[in-house]
């Protein structure tokens, strides 16, 4: 068969895998819904939970589609479609593809198309290098979970504080990350970003100067999102606006993202 990165057979295989993964999600959704009925949980609340989760997911999912479009220029559509429907991310797939291609005189940025062998190498490196979680959860997931349950049975209050600490720890790390370029305000040596551009078919790293205030873009975006969340929190105390509680997070996400457009124009 003549190889092409968009060969119908690749679409078919990626499609089968995506269908299986979709099947797993549907399976667990039904299983959990059944259990919620057995436990006598309020089904109105459950429906609201589904609605909120669905609405909240839209913007991040569109961001994933953008990553697929970017990667598909070199890798074709089926591979990025599969890779970003299962565990993986734009940055991981880019690193994995470039590492796979580096031994063959190819790169993601070059204009030369991939042959079947190069494609196969990329596919194997991408698949194998991120396998850890998929098999490690079946191996140690039950132990970790029963550890948490035992902790909960022994000391429920500390178990709650323990889970909240994990959540807060993760949020604190990402809040810190939002501030990672703030030092551009006072340190001129940090006012550049490295971009990869293509010159004569080869990748060249270029340093592009950025403004001192550009590090404040994520900080201001986060502040807008936080303020919207606080406003939602105040407004939903009114009985008429109680529905806001379900959509507070998606609303603050979308308003924050929208605010990033003028903020970027202003600060960069």
């Amino acid at each position, binding site marked *: 068969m003549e190889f092409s990165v968009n060969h119908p057979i690749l679409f078919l295989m990626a499609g089968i895998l995506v269908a299986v993964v979709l099947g797993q999600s549907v399976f667990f959704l039904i299983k959990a819904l059944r259990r919620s009925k057995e436990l006598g949980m309020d089904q109105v609340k459950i429906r609201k939970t589904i609605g909120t*989760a669905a609405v909240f997911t839209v913007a991040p999912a569109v961001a994933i589609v*953008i990553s697929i479009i970017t990667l598909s220029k070199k890798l074709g559509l089926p591979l990025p479609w599969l890779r970003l429907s299962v565990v993986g991310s734009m940055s991981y797939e880019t690193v994995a593809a470039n*590492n796979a291609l580096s031994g*063959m005189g190819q790169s993601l940025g070059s204009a030369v198309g991939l042959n079947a062998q190069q494609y196969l190498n990329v596919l194997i490196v991408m698949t194998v*290098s991120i396998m*850890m979680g998929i098999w490690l959860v079946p191996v140690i997931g039950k132990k970790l*979970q029963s550890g948490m349950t035992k902790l909960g049975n022994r000391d429920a209050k500390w178990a709650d504080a323990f889970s909240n600490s994990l959540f807060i720890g993760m949020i604190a790390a990402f809040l*810190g990350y939002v501030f*990672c370029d703030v030092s551009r305000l006072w340190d001129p040596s940090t006012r550049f970003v490295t971009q990869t551009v293509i010159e004569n078919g080869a990748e060249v790293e270029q340093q592009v100067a950025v403004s001192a205030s550009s590090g404040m873009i994520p*900080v201001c975006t986060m502040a807008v999102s936080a303020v919207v969340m606080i406003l939602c929190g105040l407004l939903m105390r009114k009985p008429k606006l109680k529905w806001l509680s379900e959509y507070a997070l998606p609303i603050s996400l979308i308003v924050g993202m929208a605010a990033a457009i003028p903020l970027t124009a202003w600060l960069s």
Partner: protein
Amino acid sequence: MKKNLSYMDSVHRDGRIWNIGVMILLLLFPVAVALAFGVLPDWNALVIGLLATAPMYWAVGAIETVTFVPMLGAGGSYLSFVTGNISNLKLPCALNALEQNQVSANSEEGEVISTIAIATSSIVTTLIIILGVILIVPLTPILSAPVLQPAFEQILPALFGGLGVAFVSKNWKIAVAPICLMLILFVFVPALDASTVGIMVPVSALFTIAVARILYKRGVL
């Protein structure tokens, strides 16, 4: 109590079957490509590529598993480690659902709620991606419009601003110290940026647990 155990046991049994099954299918994809196009890998380049990629991401994967499983719950973990996008999508989604329903992550209700949220999010993500793949030709000029780029570049700050307010306000006693530490580290250590935030999550989580333990022992919580 008996029934309670059996639900959790069945989640682990089903999760193991699904995850191992999906893993085998994922590994069969390269085999199928090799057979369909009658080609073998370039072995030398493959070894170079794997050595450059796998050790680091396996280490990250192992740390992520230990950190995220207690937060995601059982069903949520099996799903999340197949469908990915954990810290930017699945976990915030589960946290928001737990918050909205006022249930503890350690209760069976919490397990059910987080599984429902994560499964819904996975289904919606997969469907939107399918739609995006089908409509890629008309969508490309819209989604790659320069005017929209900043919005998608700032998706994490926009997400964690709202999520931060919701969670920090309810747990401010344990949140103050780790937030200060992370701010100082990220502002003053140049090596910490978008590519290293994943490594800082377990560091920050361990530090927060230590702070919470001290506060708990002193009866402040």
